[in-house]
Structures are given as C-alpha cells and as structure tokens.
C-alpha cells in the first residue's frame, strides 16, 4: 500500500512568487495578471546505487480576484534508477517496474503524469491584516491515478516584510492505478519555513517538512513519519525570478510497521517512498503589470 506514496503524491505546486521552494505563501497574482512558472523537482539518492526522480511542472497562474488565484499545471516525470533498493534491486518512486522484468536491470522512463488545477483563496492578508491565512485546493488527474490536495496556509511577516514566517498544513488523498491494482494512501504534511531578504532582490530561507503517511484514503493506518530540512535561495527582479531549494532527509524516521521498517537505512526511509535529497528549481515570468 505504502508503495503508492510520492509516486503520485508529495508536495505538488506552489503559487505566486513566494520566496520558498517548497512552501506556499499568500503572495497571489494581482487581479487580471498572470504568470508562467516552471518547476523542476529532483529527488536524488537512496540507500545505494543510482536514483534520480525528476518531476517537471509547467504552470500558468492567473489572478482571478485580489483574493483568489487559479493555476493550471501540466505534470511530467523522468526517472532513472539502478540497484538503488535496500535489497539491491532497482525500484523507487516513479519507477513502476513490472514484476516480470529483471529486478537488477537499470530503469529509465519519461511519462506524462497528470494535469492539475489549483485554487487559492486568501482570507487574511499578511500585509494588511497582520497575519495571513488562506485555503488551497488542487485536484489532479492522469493516466496513472488521481490526487486531491488541500492546504491550510499561514503567514506572518515582520520587519517591513523582510522576514517571512510561513506554515502549511497539507492534507492529501490519492489513488493510483498500476500493475492491475488500485492503491490508496493519505498524507499529512507540516511545512515550516523562515525567509529573510538579506539584500535587494535576494532572500535566504530555511524550510522544514514533517511528512506523515497513512494507508487508505481516510488516514486509516499510520505508515511512517519522515523529516526533511534544508536551505533555499531566491532571486527576483521585475521581469523574472528563480528559486533554488534543497531538502535533506534527516535520520529521524518513524516506521510503524514491518513493511516500512524494511526500507529504513540509517534512520532514513527509502523504498517506494522517499529519496535522501530533494532539490527544487522554480523559475517564474510575470505578465500583465501596468507600467
């Protein structure tokens, strides 16, 4: 069951031009403006061998109201894996290897994953209300499954908005169709981040993630709890912006059953769940500003 996780799940998209790589803020597109955004999310390294899993997301987002933004995504994936499993076999998120193939052969594949549409509603504006709060909703569907992601977004700005504290609570349920079966999982993530604008155009951030995964679509049985931490650098000017982030899996995993424990090495969980490191590159080009 847990094999489903991160193959279609995991943190998906973000909105507007926030300083973080993985965490949403309430910086929405102004009404009537739009932005193109490209995401490259690389998960790299498992317990041994070679493992790279790249998720590509091309997005158009639009400010529908001052407090409401929509986004449409086209999502694809590329995977390369070779003897990366704890037992020396080839596997991991995104591999989807047939049980009939050689388990020790390298695997590489590129596939269309899904299309998704996000909705973000800002209920409290961190710039004018003293504290930011918003709701996020994103359904996604593709040939291999569907997922439904909901987030609670929190934001507090300090020191002329130089310092941004943000938190996301992520609820996600997903179903994947592969190998002739249907699998279900649900996810509860807590994301925390702090960003400081240390110079004009530049911000430095620290981002933390606690990822909790469950079997079943209704948080039926706890599978594991994993922790990630890493830095992010953000650059922006009036014409474009880019964000580069790195999250490292901390050796603190809690695995709640034998199946999960079997893919834990040195306190980190791998298997079909996670990699050792995650890198995110986002590039955005805003349009529609009136000079």
């Amino acid at each position, binding site marked *: 069951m847990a094999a489903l996780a991160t193959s279609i799940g995991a943190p998906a998209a973000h909105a507007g*031009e926030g300083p973080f790589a993985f965490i949403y803020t309430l910086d929405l597109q*102004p*009404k*009537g*403006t739009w932005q193109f955004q*490209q995401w*490259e999310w690389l998960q790299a390294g498992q317990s041994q061998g070679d493992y*790279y899993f*790249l998720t*590509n997301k*091309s997005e158009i987002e639009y*400010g529908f109201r*001052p407090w409401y933004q929509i986004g449409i995504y086209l999502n*694809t994936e*590329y995977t*390369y894996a070779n003897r990366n499993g704890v037992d020396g076999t080839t596997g991991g998120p995104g591999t989807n290897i047939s049980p009939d193939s050689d388990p020790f052969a390298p695997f*590489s594949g*590129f596939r269309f994953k899904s299309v998704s549409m996000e909705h973000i509603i800002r209920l409290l*504006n961190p*710039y*004018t209300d003293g504290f930011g709060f918003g709701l996020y909703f994103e359904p996604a569907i593709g040939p291999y499954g569907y997922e439904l992601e909901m987030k609670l977004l929190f934001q507090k700005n300090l*020191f*002329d*908005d*130089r310092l941004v504290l943000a938190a996301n609570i992520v609820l996600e349920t997903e179903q994947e169709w592969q190998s002739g079966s249907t699998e279900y999982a649900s996810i509860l993530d807590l994301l925390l981040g702090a960003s400081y*604008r240390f110079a*004009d*155009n530049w911000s430095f951030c620290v981002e933390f993630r606690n990822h909790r995964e469950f079997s079943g679509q209704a948080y039926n049985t706890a599978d594991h709890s994993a922790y990630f931490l890493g830095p992010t650098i953000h650059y*922006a*000017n*009036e*014409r*474009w*912006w*880019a964000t580069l982030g790195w999250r490292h899996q901390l050796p603190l995993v809690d695995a709640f059953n034998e199946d999960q424990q079997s893919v834990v090495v040195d306190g980190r969980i791998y298997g079909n769940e996670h990699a050792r490191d995650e890198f995110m590159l986002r*590039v955005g*080009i*805003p349009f*529609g*500003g*009136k*000079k």
Partner: protein
Amino acid sequence: MRWLPLLAPTAVIVTVPAAATVYFSTEQAQQAMFPGATFSLVPLQLSDAQRRTMLDRSGVHEPFHADRVWRVSTGGYFVIDEVLGKHERIKYAVAIGPDATVRQIEILEYNESYGYEVRDPAWRQQFVGKNASSTLKLGSDIRNISGATLSSKHLTDGVKRLLVMYELALKGTP
C-alpha cells in the same frame, strides 16, 4: 547520456535585469514640487531616541538616511526617502509645506513586476494635507491598491515616518 531527457522539459531562462526606471532625478523632483525655488541641504543629525520614536510611530525598520533633506527657499522642506518594494527599493520624495503638512509626493524610482498604480496622481493625492498627527493607516486613511498592497503599505508608513521626523527635528527650526 541518461540525463539527456531531463533537459527537454526544463525551461532555462536567462534574462539580463532591466535598467532601473527613474521617473525623476532629485533636481527634477525638486523643481516639480517647488517650481522656481532654491534648495539647501540640511545638516540633519538624528539622535537614537528620535530614530526610536520614528520607528515606534511609523513601524518602518529600514534605516532613514538623514542626508537627503533640503530646506526650500520659498518655505517648507523637500525630503527623499526609500522603502522596501517587493524586490527592490522604492525611492520617493515628499514635499512638506510651511504649514507642516504634506504638499505633494512623487515616486522617483520604481522597479517591480506589479504595483505601478502607486504612481497614480489620485492615489498620491490622498497624502496631501496630512501631518504628523494624522494616523495614516493603509485601508482607512489611505486607500489600499489591490495588487500593490506591499508598495502601498510601505509608502504610507514611509510618509508617516517622514512626518514624524519633521515634527521631531525640523519643525520650528529657522
């Protein structure tokens, strides 16, 4: 070779940052706001206590540069200040009349993706007549500009800080 497919969907964007947009030089702003006047730089020195009061009453943490205050030959003061925009600083000027109220504000430099509406005369006109006793809160005294909230807020707080500075250090001086 195995990395080749990674490159295909990756948008690599290399753009040279645009040159800063300057709407007014210092001299142009001075003549636009006080036509025909002459200007003398004020050797202003603010104490720590005065700076603390400016911070407390305006909420602006950005350092204030006291070397950009001019006395105007026809009465009043011309002050240049900067506040944070979304990516860069917003440079603006405030004309304070002999009656200690705002006579005019002008945006000198603005280099952001959005929020250029802060240059609209109707929005800037809201500051005219305000003084250090005015509350100057965005959303009540000054209209918020949707899509330019950060710029609106920082400019509003910045003008408040300059009026407090005027009251503390310039008011009543010859």
